[in-house]
């Protein structure tokens, strides 16, 4: 340790210097206050012994200056003065002196004082260094939050989270907790929603949000189903995320054409379908995304029948883990209890809907009215008309020149088990004529045509059983089983375009290897069911196709359907 002795008297400097050198210190000396200040700056001593009365600049002044020069580091100053003068002593403390030493100097006391101050100095400097590190961490975090906000904006902008049927509590800093919510409209009409929760906190937790949103938006736009989307997300996250990082996620598809809700839930603890008078849990039956290899990953979705104004309630664990004053967590039980709630009958609450009711219950529980960044809650209303409106508003399309073309696709039974042709066709159509071609229900038409060929042609399912809610579920489970066991058959698809003044006329042909059906029944059926009614799900497919197409004809065997569909370029 380097010590500076400041004293105008040579004998004093000699005596003190001798003591200090004997104890192993490096000693430098100044003869007055001004010299001391200069030496402090040039020699950087770690401790100073300071006389009071000196020519040029006295010890008080020198101490003041040195202390003001060393705000970031603690430099102890010991005054060399008689302990008898109270006024002088108090002045020593005032200017920043840390201790006193009286003559004649006692070597043991001198050493003890220096040791004590050295410890204080070390402690101070450690604290100061820690404070500096803390400040720099804080600044770093502010920058990270800024980045998180930008990432947040960039992943939310392409979606439709601001849609009127989506109520959402999501902090701009949610990515910092790993929470992410995505929503997008399907070209076939319908809504995809993803509620996710990355492991970990901070910017690292949002690492996966960019690939996640890319896949989600682009696959949804191409018309893929959530099982394909979820498989691709798992594949990508497994590749890209570091070990131990994964995404708990619940994907929901609101299929307004078939009035069903499809969901895949991997470890999202609170996911429910609120039907006003009953609640269905969208149970987690999968591991989070980014853990399993492709071959062991299960993309099976569950299907529930829905009606208009049913609501999907989704929440990450932030709400369930909210604590009250006693440290008790809000928990799943209280959450479910919130859902057992009839707004019409309950006049005690200010809440006008289930979303507000949950947040209100959470406030009451935690005793605070501040929603923290940790809470992510979404309520999505299944409003067929509104969702239809959303999908028709979508997109700003580039004009493509209509041309003459035709393509055929031939899917054997084994291909049908693993390939959904509709997104494929959508993609091809988009490449050839631009995505405006998918406006006005083309995807819906293709989806229905494919379902008819598969369900009734190849699988010989009886759609009339869909008339009851139980049959409805039965239909989907039968379909899954039959498809698995399918060992023969094919579906041929042929699409051609003939340009018109405003766009083009598509001729779409779906042919299957099934036995067909009695086409004469069709006329009677269409007379019986002039319009869709919620009770008649089974009639929906053909009438939808009729709605969007100029003409629909069947062959006599009933296993080949030809439709013409007109599309137009944007003005």
């Amino acid at each position, binding site marked *: 340790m380097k010590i500076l002795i400041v004293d105008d008297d040579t*004998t*004093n400097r*000699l*005596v003190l210097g*001798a*003591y200090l050198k004997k104890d192993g210190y490096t000693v430098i000396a100044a003869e007055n206050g001004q010299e001391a200040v200069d030496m402090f700056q040039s020699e950087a001593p770690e401790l100073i012994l300071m006389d009071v009365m000196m020519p040029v600049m006295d010890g008080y002044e020198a101490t003041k200056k040195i202390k003001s020069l060393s705000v970031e580091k603690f430099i102890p100053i010991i005054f060399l003065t008689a302990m008898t003068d109270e006024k002088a002593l108090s002045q020593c403390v005032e200017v920043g002196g840390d201790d006193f030493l009286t*003559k*004649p100097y006692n070597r043991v006391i001198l050493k003890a004082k220096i040791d004590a101050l050295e410890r204080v100095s070390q402690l101070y400097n450690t604290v100061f260094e820690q404070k500096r590190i803390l400040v720099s961490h804080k600044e770093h975090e502010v920058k990270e939050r800024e980045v998180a906000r930008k990432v947040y904006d960039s992943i939310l902008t392409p979606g439709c989270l601001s849609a009127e049927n989506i109520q959402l509590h999501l902090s701009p800093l949610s990515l910092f907790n790993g929470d992410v919510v995505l929503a997008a409209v399907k070209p076939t009409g319908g809504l995809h929603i993803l509620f996710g929760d990355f492991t970990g906190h901070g910017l690292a937790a949002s690492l996966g949000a960019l690939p996640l949103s890319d896949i989600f938006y682009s696959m949804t736009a191409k018309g893929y189903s959530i099982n394909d989307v979820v498989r691709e997300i798992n594949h990508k996250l497994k590749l890209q995320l570091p070990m131990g990082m994964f995404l708990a996620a619940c994907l929901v598809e609101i299929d307004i054409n078939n009035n069903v809700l499809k969901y895949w839930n991997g470890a999202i603890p609170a996911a429910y379908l609120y039907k006003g008078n009953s609640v269905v849990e969208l149970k987690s039956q999968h591991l989070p995304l980014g853990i399993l290899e492709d071959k062991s990953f299960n993309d099976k979705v569950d299907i529930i029948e829905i009606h208009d104004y049913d609501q999907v309630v989704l929440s990450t664990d932030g709400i369930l883990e909210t604590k009250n004053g006693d440290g008790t967590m809000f928990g799943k039980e209280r959450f479910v209890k919130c859902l057992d709630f009839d707004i019409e009958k309950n006049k005690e609450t200010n809440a006008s809907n289930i979303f507000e009711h949950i947040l209100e219950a959470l406030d009451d529980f935690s005793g605070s009215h501040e929603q923290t960044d940790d809470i992510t809650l979404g309520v999505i209303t299944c409003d067929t008309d509104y969702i239809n409106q959303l999908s028709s508003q979508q997109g700003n399309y580039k004009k493509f020149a209509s041309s003459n073309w035709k393509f055929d696709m031939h899917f054997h039974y084994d291909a049908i088990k693993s390939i959904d042709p509709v997104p494929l066709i959508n993609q091809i159509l988009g490449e050839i004529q631009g995505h405006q071609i998918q406006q006005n229900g083309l995807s819906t038409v293709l989806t229905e045509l494919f379902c008819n060929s598969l369900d009734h042609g190849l699988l010989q399912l009886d759609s009339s059983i869909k008339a009851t809610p139980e049959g409805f579920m039965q239909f989907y489970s039968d379909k899954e089983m039959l498809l698995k066991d399918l060992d023969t058959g094919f579906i041929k698809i042929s699409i051609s375009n003939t340009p018109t003044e405003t766009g083009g006329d598509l001729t779409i042909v779906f042919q299957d290897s099934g036995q067909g059906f009695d086409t004469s029944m069709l006329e009677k059926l269409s007379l019986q069911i002039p319009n869709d009614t919620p009770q008649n799900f089974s009639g929906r497919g053909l009438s939808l196709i009729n709605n969007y197409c100029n003409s629909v004809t069947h062959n006599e065997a009933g296993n080949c359907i030809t439709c013409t569909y007109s599309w137009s370029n944007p003005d």
Partner: protein
Amino acid sequence: MPGTSIDLNILKKLKQIMDDDFNELIEIFISDGQSQLKTLKAAIDSSAASDIRRIAHTLKGSSANLGLLTLSETCKTLEYNAAENIFDDANELFEKIKSEFEEAKLTLEEIL
């Protein structure tokens, strides 16, 4: 030494610690002391209180360091009086300081 108290222990310890530097210390103390006495006399003659105070203070400290307790005490009295602007016994005290310094000088030269 009649009437003068000198702490020989302090001197012995200093000598032990400082080795060769001890001689230099004593020589400096004596030569500085002599010039300080001259300046002190001049200050007393012109009743320059702050000069009296400063020189007495310095001599008080350096003599204490060498264990010259009586000399240090007398310097302290002079310093304090000067601080209070009391000059009545300044000359008397100066003579006392001078003779105590001479006595100390003899003792120190013996130790060298």
